[in-house]
């Protein structure tokens, strides 16, 4: 049994005070990962002496449009990502991904901030957030810094979050005109399913039907979600009318293996990841062609 002192606060300031004053503090948001790990006494869980419950801080529960960014509070639940018009309208990929997480109960409790900080290789929100070039705002009593989400992640279940820092905001730049997004996921069952593999695709298609600024981020494919630059470059410049999807599939498989090496699951993931990128591209191409007409 893990024993700890329980701290709770209703204000960011107070929470930051606690983080400043105490060391070995574990932050509790939705608890959908943390409580399970505490129950299991998971080796993944670092030793901690305090549990800081931030779930009652109203200041961390917003979704707002600020200039060219949508800003999201870390306590926004998966359920809100699915329902919120600002998200659905601007980043449908995020709503789609949130919809595939766990069960109704988990989507009602689990938060975007928790999904980011837990940094699971199979996290369903990380691939779309990275593909959307999301940034995280990390606040401590003394300072505040902004990092791109991709840089924030450093390994499986590892981030650059400092002991005295709290994730206070997620900023996602609005996509300009001509952008398309898609999210694909394979699970072993239809609900309550950890991704066997997932993939987020964001790309811009110009009036001639040419791909630009493509972002490809698979999940559960690499130790932690990251962009696949080789694949992205291989899509950029191609046209929706003659892109060779088989070739892109092969490239994404190779790029995955170049990162992970041959693992026990590679024989499955190689063809499967090729399928996911082909399906994402097919869907986007179909949409683009419909828009053209």
């Amino acid at each position, binding site marked *: 049994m893990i024993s700890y002192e329980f701290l709770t606060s209703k204000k960011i300031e107070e929470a930051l005070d606690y983080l400043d004053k105490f060391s070995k503090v574990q932050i509790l948001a939705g608890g959908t990962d943390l409580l399970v790990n505490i129950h299991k006494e998971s080796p993944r869980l670092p030793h901690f002496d305090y549990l800081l419950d931030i779930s009652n801080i109203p200041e961390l529960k917003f979704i707002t449009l600020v200039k060219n960014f949508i800003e999201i509070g870390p306590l926004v639940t998966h359920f809100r990502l699915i329902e919120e018009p600002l998200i659905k309208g601007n980043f449908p990929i995020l709503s789609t991904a949130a919809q595939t997480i766990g069960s109704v109960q988990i989507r009602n409790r689990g938060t975007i901030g928790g999904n980011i900080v837990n940094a699971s290789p199979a996290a369903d929100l990380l691939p779309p957030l990275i593909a959307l070039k999301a940034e995280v705002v990390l606040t401590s009593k003394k300072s505040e810094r902004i990092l791109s989400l991709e840089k924030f992640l450093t390994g499986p279940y590892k981030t650059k979050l400092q002991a005295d820092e709290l994730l206070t905001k997620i900023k996602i730049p609005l996509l300009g005109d001509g952008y398309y997004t898609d999210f694909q996921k394979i699970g072993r069952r239809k609900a309550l399913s950890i991704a066997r593999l997932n993939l987020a695709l964001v790309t811009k298609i110009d009036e001639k039907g040419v791909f630009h600024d493509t972002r490809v981020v698979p999940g559960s494919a690499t130790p932690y979600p990251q962009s696949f630059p080789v694949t992205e470059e291989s899509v950029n410049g191609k046209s929706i009318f003659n892109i060779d999807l088989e070739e892109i599939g092969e490239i994404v498989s190779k790029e995955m293996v170049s990162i992970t090496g041959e693992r*026990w*699951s590679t024989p499955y993931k190689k*063809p499967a990841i090729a399928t996911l990128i082909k399906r994402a591209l097919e869907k986007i191409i179909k949409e683009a062609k419909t828009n053209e007409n």
Partner: protein
Amino acid sequence: MKFSEVNKPVKRVDAYEKVTGKAKFGADLFFPNMLYGKALHSKYPHAQIIKINTEKALTYPGVKAIITAEDIPNNKFGVIIQNQQVLAQEEVLYIGDGIAVVAAETKEAASEAIKLIEVEYKELPGIFDPEEAAKKDAPLIHSELEDNQVVHHRVRKGDVEKAFTQAEVILEREYTTQFVEHSYIEPEAIIAVPYEHNSLVTIYGSIQNPFSCRNAVANVLKVPLNKVRIIQNHMGGSFGGKDEVISSMAARAAVLALKTNQPVKMVNTREESILESYKRHPYKMKYKVGATKEGKLVAMEIKCIADSGAYACQTPFVTWRSVVQATGPYELPSVKTDTYGYYTNNIYTGAMRGYGSPQIVFAQESLMDELADELKMTPLELRLKNIYHNNSITASGQKLDNHQVSLEEVIAKAVKASNYIEKYIEYNKSQLGDKKRGIGMAVSFRGCSLGAEATDAAGAIVAIQRDGSILISSGLAENGEGLKTVFSQIAAEELGVDIKRINYMEVDTSVSPESGATVASRSTLLGGNAVKNAAQQIKRTITEMIADKFKVKSGDLVLRNENIYNKNNNQKIMSFDDAVDLANKLGVFLSAYGWYKAPDISWDEETGQGRPYFTYVYGCQIAEVEVDTATGQIEVLKMVAAHDVGRAINPVTLKGQIYGGIMMALGYGIMEEVEIASGYIKNTNFDEYLIPTIKDMPEIIPIIVENPDPHGPYGAKSIGEPTLELGAPAIANAVAQATGRRIRHLPLNLERVLLGHSLSKGGTKNDIL
């Protein structure tokens, strides 16, 4: 036949307390001064125990007692072969073996104290493959035995060797199935209360078979049966799974309760439950079938090897059902079947819904489709050419002449409802895109009740109270399937009263008549007949009493609509309540013990010939699937299930059985597997052991077929297990049609469907990549 209470969708008699949360389950019970028990499990799948030191643990605050094997009066128990250790004595034989149990004032203290128990082990090499265990020079799992064989059953019919020389087509195939967890929603729970009323110990809890549990506890304590009282609570599922594991827990709790003279409660966590509770047997099955070009089967040779794990548990009987049913419901002049069980250091295996049938039905029904393919026939044609009909002779030489053999009927109904013929043709054409559809069928026959395993009889008490209310008690136990409702319906039908008069009692082994175990889909058939018998005795008492007083013939009196009528003129003589009043006044006894003994059966263990079961049920399920051939995902679109049940006592609860059985089969077929590597279990909770959720549930069309059986109450037979044994092969056959590739190993997971073989994780279980 017109019925007033049976054959009707009566509301469950236990619905109210369950949906309102008032029903008490094992873990809900509390007693004054109650202690909490926690077991320390082994660190290794196979090891010698050199030393156990409990000194430190005993000093932990709140700890009252710790027991080890030394404290158990008789440490071996078992329903069939008594070789399961209550607590490991000299050796641990599997990873879930218990070593010591702590009783403490709080759950937390008990959990912390077991960590302080120091065990010195000498790790021993283990055997984890039953075929390794079968080798002559294999080390012995149980040193007192001559070899590792638990059992060997045979069926010998005709001359198989000669028959194969006459076959025009011969197919040889191997199939395997996996370890599967019951996944009851309620983990094991037991409370042992010492010296309550006049019993030495009273056991409450989540107990599938109260009488098996009483046998085990009394044997372990070395006391007479009448000193041990078992009272069953509501069950959060069992599916065959709360037998030996619960007996073991009850025995441990009883020893601790007597040692401390305080009630002791034990409730497993899910991890403990998966770690120590027995699983469904994995089978390796070799099938050889010979047929003529026209598709008439001429011979079958079958060898099945079951992994029994550390203990015998139910392996002798599980493999016996397999040997009887291994050919499937097909006429075969020559058959040679051998089923074996071997001890290994894997987790032990026992009863689970199906009981030796899901494995062999998967093999034989896959084989039939493969043979049809070979013969360029449709799976339906091949089956229709070979299935049992009235008066067919089974592989065991039994002539099916005492009931309606309705295979053709169940197949026809399932085929029609699923549009099988058209869809089979449609899906055989080439399909565009990654997503391909297929349709597959599976059929089976299944012996009802215990068969030649054991004496097959059951009892019930029906007792009319002074005010006309009625109590029923039976030795068979509600497991969630609806037994209380069905038995109440039968009593109400016989007595011609409203079911609302009846209150159904929990099983109490000191009151209820011993009826064997609630297993083998036998309760409606055996227990239903016992209830009927008791109610008929009371009916006779009432009619004789009235006949005497009103000078009419008792045979002319009928009980219906809460009244007693003269059937000749349909005149009401008196109400049921008045009849009860009259009996009270006259001192007439209105209670009865009902008893039913199953018809005789026979079995020759050497040849496997005889009448292994007194009757059978028949079923056909058809699955329609869509396979994503680029990811390996299977979506089961639709399942049609036609089952001949003899008579549906309650059509709604019966459909519930069909829905549930199909969902369990879907899990068995495409996702469930207890992953075991060198005896260690990798997935000990439902985050990693995946079972289907409601989102995976396909459209299910249940078809109830009724050919009343002469032996069943109102003709009723069985439904619980038949529903489970057909789904996996039907799905596998549909997947094979969709993909053009046959998978002979369960489950049909993503990797097998996409690559044709499974991938093994190896390494640490936390490495999700």
